Each structure stands twice: as structure tokens, then as C-alpha cells.
């Protein structure tokens, strides 16, 4: 039991006309593949879940295992890649999951995510979601590993006309149930896709799906990772590496269209969530962080966000949504002068010289070594470019105003 007062902020969010008790929901992905997994997540405190994408019973789902490999950099997993597919459980299993979850957790939001191949299958999956009691529908039109549009490796979400057509079919069958297309960032102009699906009747958006990539090449077999009998394929990349790209997409959607957006991709901590909300996200979908750390991270997310909002004098999480958007301007709008100069806190400096190497070979050659062996900045030569604080292992370099 905490002896300290909890922050007095309202974390609840409204999205698709539905109330979520916090912005944190499980993305349509492996952690939402079964009733049991979502049940445990709801018990841990998640506000909602989009079940893993499902299909008609006669649709064959092929998956070659292993389907996951990590993107490692200097020994650390920065992201995962997968050659997974939609769920191996079909709509009948998902109907059962929706019914059980809604009965046990009436205040939690449960959505289905559907994948059809024909107008009929998309519409049947839509009607069956309604009958099972789903709160809304997510349309999987962006899975990089299983969207063989017209036989090419192209996703429905990459073609505005196709996206419009499919969302229209679903909306026609949805009978007012909110319809949320899940977009891909693998496009030239995501706003044009968003406008197309809005035109087709979409209620809100999820952005984005995993990002098309090739995880790596095994240099013994020269096969892509994960190696399946000496072969491999393009994968969906997920996890922390996606964050800057996700922020960019959210900012573009936040500025360029007016549907509410659920962020999906790259959020691990409350910091990430708060930044996503700042650039316009209403909900934060999480998958990889749960796969890495477990469902109980939702408490870290909620508590951290609540303290942050309180520290900013905000009473509700809704207040944060879009707050950073006015500060994102085109590059020419920035004042093109040297604003800062590097400053070294010698009391914490280890004299490793990484700043000197980077400045000498990649900066403006503004560092020299003082008589005690510490790095010293020549203020006239320093442009304040911002490189040296990022290479300093001791976090002892700051950019000070000029």
C-alpha cells in the first residue's frame, strides 16, 4: 500500500466514442492472440486490446518458425523483426475471446482486427465482430509479411484507392460500429491514405504497423534472418528503433488530418508515450515492450505518465494530446544561427577523449586537451552542433546558450 498520494490526474481517453481508462492498450499482435493472454493483461491494468488479426476459417495461415530475430547493435537488442503472419486462430476463436473478455471485463475495450480476401469475407468478419460484441474493428491493411495485393508484395494500405475500397466495404457492413484502418508508414504520403480512408467512413486511425525491413544476413549461410532452410524474407520491424519514425508519422497525421490516432510502434516507457501524445496520439498501443518485459509494464507506463502530467499542471491526459504540434515547423522556419556552445563538466569527465575524436573527425575541430588532460572547447571554433554530448559516456557535456 502506498503511503504517498497518487497524482490527481485523469488518464482516461476517448477514442471512437469509447471510453478507455488509460491511453494504454495492447496492439493487435502476439500478446493478444488468446483469451488467456488478454485476460492477464486486463488484470494487470491495460485499458483495452485489439485482438491479433484474424481471418475466415477457410483461410490458410502459413508461418515458418522461427519467425523472430532481433536487430542487435553492440550486443543490445534495439528492435525485433518478425516474419510472423496473422493469427493461426480463426474468427471462431476470436469470437469466443471477445465474448469471454467483454463478459469478464465490461469496462475494458476489446476490438477485433480482421483480414479478408474478398468483399464477402471482409463483410462477414465485420458482421461476426459485431455479433460477438467487439467495441470496434481494426482493419489490417498494412501487415508487411502477408498482404499479397494482386500478387505483388504491396500492401492495401499503400494504395489509396484500394484502401478506400476495402474500408468502404467494411463500413457498409459495420452498422455504425467504429472502423479503424491500421496504416503503414511505408508510403510516400501517409496523409493522403488517411484522407482516403476517412472519405470511406473510417472513424479513427491506428498508425502504424511494423515497418518493412530485412533484419540481417547470416554471414555463414548468406541467408536473411531468421534463417529458414537457408532462405529468408522481408520482415516487419518493431520495437524501440521505430520511435523517431513513429513520431514523424504521428506529427504528419496530427497536422494533416483530423481523425484521432492510436500510436502503434516503438513505445516502451512513459517518456515515449508522452512524446507520442504530444504529437497527437490519443491511444498508445504496445506490443514489443510487452513481449520483452511482460504485461505488468502497464503500471510503469500509467504511473510515469500520471506523475509527468501532474508536474506539468495538467489535470488529464487528454490535455497533452497534440501539445507539441505547434512547435513542429518546417526547416526554413528555424533561426539559422549558432545557438549553443559545448561545455564540459570536468568533475565528471573521465578524460576518455571520445568528444575530441568525434569533434576532430566529424565536427568542427573545436576541442583541444588542456594541461590536466581534460577536453577543452574553443568557443570560437565550436558551432554547437550537438555531436559531442551524444558520444560522451559520462554525460558530462551540455550545450549551453551562447
Amino acid at each position, binding site marked *: 500500500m*502506498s*503511503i*504517498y498520494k497518487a497524482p490527481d490526474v485523469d488518464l482516461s481517453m476517448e477514442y471512437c466514442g469509447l471510453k478507455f481508462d488509460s491511453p494504454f492498450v495492447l496492439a493487435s499482435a502476439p500478446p493478444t492472440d488468446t483469451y488467456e493472454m488478454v485476460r492477464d493483461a486486463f488484470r494487470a491494468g491495460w485499458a483495452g486490446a485489439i485482438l491479433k488479426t484474424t481471418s475466415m476459417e477457410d483461410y490458410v495461415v502459413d508461418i515458418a518458425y522461427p519467425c523472430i530475430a532481433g536487430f542487435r547493435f553492440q550486443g543490445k537488442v534495439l528492435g525485433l523483426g518478425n516474419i510472423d503472419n496473422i493469427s493461426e486462430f480463426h474468427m471462431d476463436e476470436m469470437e469466443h475471446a471477445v465474448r469471454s473478455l467483454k463478459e469478464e471485463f465490461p469496462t475494458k475495450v476489446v476490438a477485433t482486427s480482421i483480414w479478408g480476401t474478398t468483399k464477402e469475407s471482409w463483410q462477414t468478419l465485420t458482421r461476426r465482430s459485431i455479433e460477438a460484441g467487439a467495441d470496434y474493428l481494426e482493419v489490417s491493411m498494412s501487415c508487411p509479411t502477408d498482404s499479397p495485393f494482386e500478387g505483388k508484395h504491396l500492401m492495401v494500405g499503400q494504395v489509396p484507392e484500394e484502401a478506400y475500397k476495402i474500408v468502404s466495404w467494411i463500413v457498409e457492413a459495420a452498422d455504425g460500429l467504429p472502423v479503424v484502418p491500421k496504416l503503414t508508414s511505408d508510403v510516400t504520403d501517409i496523409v493522403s491514405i488517411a484522407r482516403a480512408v476517412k472519405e470511406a467512413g473510417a472513424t479513427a486511425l491506428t498508425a502504424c504497423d511494423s515497418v518493412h525491413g530485412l533484419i540481417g544476413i547470416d554471414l555463414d549461410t548468406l541467408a536473411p534472418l531468421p534463417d529458414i532452410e537457408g532462405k529468408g524474407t522481408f520482415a516487419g520491424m518493431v520495437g524501440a528503433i521505430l520511435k523517431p519514425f513513429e513520431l514523424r508519422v504521428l506529427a504528419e497525421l496530427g497536422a494533416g488530418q483530423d481523425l484521432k490516432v492510436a500510436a502503434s510502434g516503438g513505445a*516502451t516507457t*512513459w*517518456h515515449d508515450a508522452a512524446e507520442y501524445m504530444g504529437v497527437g496520439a490519443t491511444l498508445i498501443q504496445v506490443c514489443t515492450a510487452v513481449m520483452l*518485459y511482460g504485461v505488468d509494464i502497464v503500471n*510503469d507506463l500509467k*504511473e510515469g505518465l500520471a*506523475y509527468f502530467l501532474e508536474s506539468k499542471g495538467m489535470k488529464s491526459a487528454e490535455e497533452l494530446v497534440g501539445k507539441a504540434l505547434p512547435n513542429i515547423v518546417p526547416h526554413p522556419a528555424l533561426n539559422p544561427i549558432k545557438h549553443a556552445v559545448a561545455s564540459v563538466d570536468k568533475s565528471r569527465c573521465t578524460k576518455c577523449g571520445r568528444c575530441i575524436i568525434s569533434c576532430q573527425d566529424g565536427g568542427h575541430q573545436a576541442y583541444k586537451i588542456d594541461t590536466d588532460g581534460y577536453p577543452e572547447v574553443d568557443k570560437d571554433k565550436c558551432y554547437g552542433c550537438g555531436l559531442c554530448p551524444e558520444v560522451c559516456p559520462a554525460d558530462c557535456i551540455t550545450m549551453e546558450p551562447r
Partner: protein
Amino acid sequence: MSVAMKATLLPVPERLKGFDEVDQGFNLTQATLEANRCLLCDNAPCTEGCPAGIDVRGFIRKIRFGEYRGGVRLLREENILAGTCGRVCPTEELCEEACRSRALTNPIRIGALQRFLTDWEMEVGRRPFDLPPATLKPVAVVGAGPAGLAAAAKLREVGHPVTIFEKRGYAGGTLVSGIPRFKLPRDVVEYEVNLVRDMGVEFKLNAPADESLTPRSLLNQGFGAVLLAVGLQEAYTLGLEGEDLEGVHTGIDVLRVANGLEPDQEVKIGKNVIVIGGGSASVNVACDALRLGAKTVIVTAIGTPAEMDAFEEDKQQSLEEGVQFASRMRPVRILGENGHVTGLEGVRTEWKVPGKYTPDNMVDVPGSRLVMPADTVIIAIGYRPDTALSRCIPELETMANGCLLVDPETGRTSQEGVFAAGDILGGRHTVVQSVSEGKATALAIHEYLGK
């Protein structure tokens, strides 16, 4: 980063100038790097290894995820003295002993991470409390040491009005008088005592448990239960010839003087000091003697430094500071001239059975008598209950050494409504063990009083 972050220690010459804290703690970068090393195990054994029941994995993950406020919440939920314990816990025998990171390189420095969070809280300020009104039956706690403070906080947390009666003029007990300031600065103790005070616990200082303040009188005054957390107040002596000489002191008096408190008997530290001991307290006393002006300090013990029953960190520090050890030696008599100490006579010992380092396994080496010159001898071999205590509560069942006998589950004494926790139960107590007992006994009292 796979090897444990080293502690930043004050250089020895600077240490010996005063009583500043030796361990400077982690800065943000160090804490982040160390937290990133944590394996974030399933069924984390560190949590199992914490007597206070802190969610260790949870608070380290909070540091890793940049959520310090929540990390502090997790610490204070289970241990109101978390800043103290982060400094003085023998973590190498508890949470860090259990740490699975050991299998890869070495354990996560859990104590230092805990301290990082509580230092952060001291710097930025704590959150307001959110406690139920104190409407349940009032409880009296006798003694403001770690067991009493932890119990009082827990009792207040579940809704009891609590009054702490403390014999001394300050709260904190052994945290203030028995642990050197260079290990546990006074402001850390004061901060945590103030947490308990700000929770609404009333402190009555200069209120010794004597004939006028007995458990019975407290129950008669309307307290629903009494918790005795009086600690061990008197130093053991060896009954050696020469103990009454000028220049012979108890370890507790030396610790008190070094911590800026009044000793029971005047303390004068000379140039050549011998500390008779072997436990962590004696090693701490030796380091304090150096700070009080001694030129040479020798600790005599029945074991070698490796065999001594002192915590590793304490031994390491004393070696760094130049404390010397006269190992496997039994003191025989304190020598003197003109009423003042001139040395210690001892005899070499060896172990009857190898590997068992207890006094009953010790045997003198014939013809090995030796004399070590000294102008000060400090006896630091442990504490025993206050003799005044047994006079004021004769009805309580005790062990031969005067420590109280209780039901180990609940801390109930032989007297109805009277409970006990902490050092007064005997055994080798650490601060965190007292916290653990204080909390458990508080909940037993809560149960006893019908909630």
C-alpha cells in the same frame, strides 16, 4: 556494460579529516548504467532476498524506465527507512547474494541503486501523504530506533494513532548513536524520522522506560497495545583485569562521541589505540578512532579479517584507512601504570576444528603471550539489554542474557497486549531485520486489536 559500477569513494586523506560520508553514491549516469545491467528476472530472487520485502526488480525497472517517483514509492511502501538501508544493509549477504547477474559477471549494486532513489527524493522533495484517519486503537511504541520507527509507520499507515516514547533526546536510536556518520549521515536519518513524524506519529523524547513508564502503565493510560523496541543499550565487557583503568572505553561511547553525542563516560582517544572486537561495530569503532585523532589503531579479534564476523564493506574500508589487525588473539588483561592504560596483554589462539570461527572452538597457543603497547583500549564486543529494563518489567519472560522471549510469528511477549521487536529479541540484528520485525509486529498488533 556488464561489470558492476564501482562505488565512488572519498579519498582516504579527505575521509580522515572529518566524518563525511565515504561512499559518494551513484550519479544519474552511473545509476542508469547499473540499472541497465539488471536482468529484470522472472520471480526475481533479489526481492526474495530482501527482509523488508521491497520489490527490487520493480524499483530497478523504474530507474531503467526513467520513472524515479514510482521507484521511490515502491521503496517507501515496504521500507520507510529505505535511504538508511540502502547505505547500511549488508546487501552482499541479502539481495545481492541472490542476484542472478552473478552468473554472468557480478551482482547488480542494489543497495546503491536504492540509495540513488532516496537521495533523489531528498533532493526534489517527497509527495504528500495519503493515509487513512488515525481512528483505530492507539498504540505505544517504546524506542525510536529502526524497529520502533518501522512499526510506528506501519501502524499509522493502517489507521492507528501511534506515540513513540524515546529515552534519549533524539529519535533514530542506534542509527544515530551506533552507526558512524561516515556510513550514515545524520541528515538521512533525520529525513526518515521526519517521514514517520509527518505521517502523524507522535514522538515523546527524553521518556525512558523505567518504573514510571512500564508497559502496564501505558496499557492503563489507554493504549491498546505496547510495542517494546528498546534495543540493546549496554555494552558488554570482558571482565578483564584493568578494565577500570583510565583510557579504557566502550565501543558505543566512542561511536557516540564520533557522532557528536554525549557518551555515558568521558572519552579520550590517545595516539595508539587497540580495539577489542571482531564484528562490524568494532571495525567501525576503529575507523572512528582514526578520525578522533588516533595514529595507530589495531583491532584484536579471535579470527583473521577473513574469519571475522564483520561485513565485507566495513572490513574493506578499515583496511583502506590503515586499521591493523591482530588476528587470532585472546585478550588476557589490560596493563596500566599510574591508573592509565599502557597496553594489552594477549595470547595467540588457534582453532580446534578448522573452519568454525566461534569462541568455543578457540584454544590458546601455549607460550604465546604477547604485550601490545597502547594508550587507549576500546572494548567493542557487542551490546546487551539495559539492566533498568528488567527492573521495570519483571513479569516479562526473558532469555538468560536479558533479551525478551516472544512468539516468533507475532512478536507477542508473555504479557497480554505487549509485543517486542528488534535488537531486544537478541541475535545478530541488522537494521533491515529490525525493519522487517517492526513491520510484521505492527501487523500482528493490528490483528490483535481487531483492526
